[in-house]
């Protein structure tokens, strides 16, 4: 089962490169801490998932690179080709000259329709190369113009064209102190549009990644490539092949088969909803958690803590909400590693902050003329605000 990756914008392309690099390096890591046969099965599975085979033996990443200005894609393509270990397809890159100017409206309303056909064609070609498609992995940032605007447009198109495949968007939450002044506008517009068309949003905050680099890894001068490498490492440990919980002897077929779509509670259960308030305001309630363990002694790991029903909402049994995937093959060079993917209230605070800041800017109508120039009217903004407020409220009530 293969995943087709779509990398959008400067951020998306820079990260995409690091992700493929991490995946490749891990799958060709000599010490897997498991039997040779196991290792080979792992490698084959990883290869099938993310790379396709080319005549001269160099694996080609199953990826489409999209950007509205050529500098970053050129850099990415050449870095991959120079490494000699893997590369991007020659024709899998789409770029224009002028960029989106950090303007969501430009990315969505101008570049989107203009280049819809070319981009979807490229994606189609990648899809045709796969034996069986399990889904799309779309990497983008929320603060810029191309990643956010064009990314939302592309995701919508994928929803229309490939409604049966899963779409998972990897979005990068910008620094709180700001990278781009209109990042709050771009973020809320992106989130509201993605909410309607994407199946899952995997969120990484630049702030958090920065902190990891500073505190846990003790890097003094943190550069974007350090941050991207941390991110790629995390993603790699989640997406590499694992066994499913049923313990079948083949590697899990569908890597994106995480049941994110948990049904919301019926309206006739108000008392249960109130019970959760007793847990205290700072307690982080989860809707669903997924733990991925790799390396030695995976089978004897104690995951009792995750099964505590206090962690989960009252309308879901811990058994349904918690999943474990294990594999004995170690990731990268770590003897043991664990990754946690969780759908919980963690996102509440950043989301609330961004919506608040965007609202403040909107109240004074700052920068709105830049968006209305390209067809995004004030109603669109108001719609986005409403949708996101609803999301915030639903998460609060978990």
């Amino acid at each position, binding site marked *: 089962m293969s995943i087709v990756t779509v990398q959008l914008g*400067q951020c998306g392309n*820079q990260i995409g490169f690091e992700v493929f690099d991490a995946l490749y390096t891990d799958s060709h890591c000599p010490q897997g801490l498991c039997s040779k046969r196991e290792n080979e099965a792992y490698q084959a599975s990883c290869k099938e998932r993310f790379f396709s085979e080319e005549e001269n033996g160099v694996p080609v990443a199953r990826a489409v690179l999209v950007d509205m*200005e*050529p*500098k*970053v894609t050129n*850099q990415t393509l050449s870095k991959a080709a120079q490494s000699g270990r893997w590369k991007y397809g020659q024709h899998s890159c789409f770029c224009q*000259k*002028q*960029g989106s*100017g*950090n*303007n969501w409206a430009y990315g969505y309303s101008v570049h989107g329709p203009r280049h819809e056909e070319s981009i979807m064609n490229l994606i189609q070609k990648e899809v045709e190369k796969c034996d069986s498609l399990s889904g799309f992995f779309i990497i983008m940032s929320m603060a810029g*113009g191309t990643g956010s605007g064009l990314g939302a447009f592309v995701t919508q198109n994928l929803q229309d064209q490939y409604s049966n495949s899963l779409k998972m968007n990897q979005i990068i939450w910008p*620094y709180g*102190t*700001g*990278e*781009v*002044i*209109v*990042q709050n506008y771009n973020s809320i517009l992106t989130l509201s549009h993605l909410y309607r068309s994407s199946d899952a949003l995997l969120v990484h905050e630049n702030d958090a990644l*920065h902190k990891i*680099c*500073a505190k846990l890894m003790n*890097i*003094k*001068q*943190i*550069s*974007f*490539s350090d*941050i991207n490498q941390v991110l790629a490492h995390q993603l790699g440990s989640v997406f590499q092949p694992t066994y499913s919980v049923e313990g079948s002897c083949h590697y899990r077929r569908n890597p994106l088969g995480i049941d994110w779509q948990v049904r919301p509670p019926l309206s006739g259960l108000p008392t249960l909803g109130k019970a959760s308030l007793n847990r205290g305001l700072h307690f982080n309630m989860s809707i669903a958690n997924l733990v991925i363990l790799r390396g030695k002694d995976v089978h004897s790991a104690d995951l009792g803590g995750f099964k505590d029903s206090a962690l989960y909402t009252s309308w879901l049994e811990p058994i349904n909400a918690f999943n474990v995937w294990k594999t004995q093959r170690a990731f990268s060079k770590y003897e043991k590693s664990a990754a946690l993917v969780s759908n919980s209230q963690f996102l509440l605070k950043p989301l609330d902050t961004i919506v608040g800041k965007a609202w403040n800017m909107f109240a004074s*109508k*700052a*920068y709105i*003329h*830049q968006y209305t120039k390209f067809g995004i009217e004030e109603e669109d903004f108001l719609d986005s605000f409403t949708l996101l407020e609803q999301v915030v409220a639903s998460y609060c009530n978990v």
Partner: protein
Amino acid sequence: MTQSVVVQVGQCGNQIGCCFWDLALREHAAVNQKGIYDEAISSFFRNVDTRVVGDGGSISKGKICSLKARAVLIDMEEGVVNEILQGPLRDVFDSKQLITDISGSGNNWAVGHKVFGSLYQEQILEKLRKSAEHCDCLQCFFIIHSMGGGTGSGLGTFLLKLLEDEFPEVYRFVTSVYPSGEDDVITSPYNSILAMKELNEHADCVLPIDNQSLFDIISKIDLMVNSGKLGTTIKPKSLVTSSAGAVKKRHQKPFDAMNNIVANLLLNLTSSARFEGSLNMDLNEISMNLVPFPQLHYLVSSLTPLYTLADVNIPTRRLDQMFSDAFSKDHQLIRADPKHSLYLACALMVRGNVQVSDLRRNIERFNVLLTKCPLAHCQTVP
């Protein structure tokens, strides 16, 4: 990669423009060792095979044959333009890119705007169209002029309306030199406000600069360099003010150092669009982020460091000092004190060996003053 066309109007505009082209050539020469005509150079220069007669002969790739600036030089008296054409930069400009007259505008906005405007409208349009045709993807017009005179002020602003009608999608970045307190032109206040009205309506972004601030900056540099307090870490000749290695060594003109500062500003502004970096900021992003309301498009600019450090790997403390300096009013190119009023938006463009962590650390320090601040980050060391 996108291209930009520079339009220099009037005496001031042309003199600054001359410094700009000189610096641009040297910057690209330093970066581009192999002499290949790459995308970075193509943003300001055309590669032309001079053996081909006529208008053709543009080469888009390969070795550099002869570089021609993407510029249009306009002046209503011939002195300044002739001097440029006799100087070392004569090969960079095409005779077809000039528009000159003989008598000048007499420091009268009305003459520049109305009389010469209508007289030369067709010619100007034609030259602009020509230069636009030579561009693959034209992103921006840079207009350099002064506000106090006649040609720069009058004809320069007449141009803006033309550009807006003819090329509505192309950004118009205007570098205007405002008259300072002790200005030698008596009618400069009239010229300036008449020009301001046009700038308000037709420019996308204006970078106001005034001579007094430039002069203060120069004095500061001279003071620092001559006092010898900085020791061996500072190179004696500041790159910002001098054209080390040679444009005119016959006699340093009085405005040279000041013009160099402005030229540096323009180069740095466009550096993220021309060179690679880890977080690029294009010209349309500058306009998008810094212009919250259509008429509030006046940007105060400041440059640091003003003197060239001999050691390229700058220790953190000095780096932090650079950030503080960027916000201090002594480093600004116009007399204004934002700290006592309100910042609407700021952008920091950083060139060289600076990492994201340094930027963030410094932004957090300034968080008290700033609520919104976008970053751009470009890797090429100037």
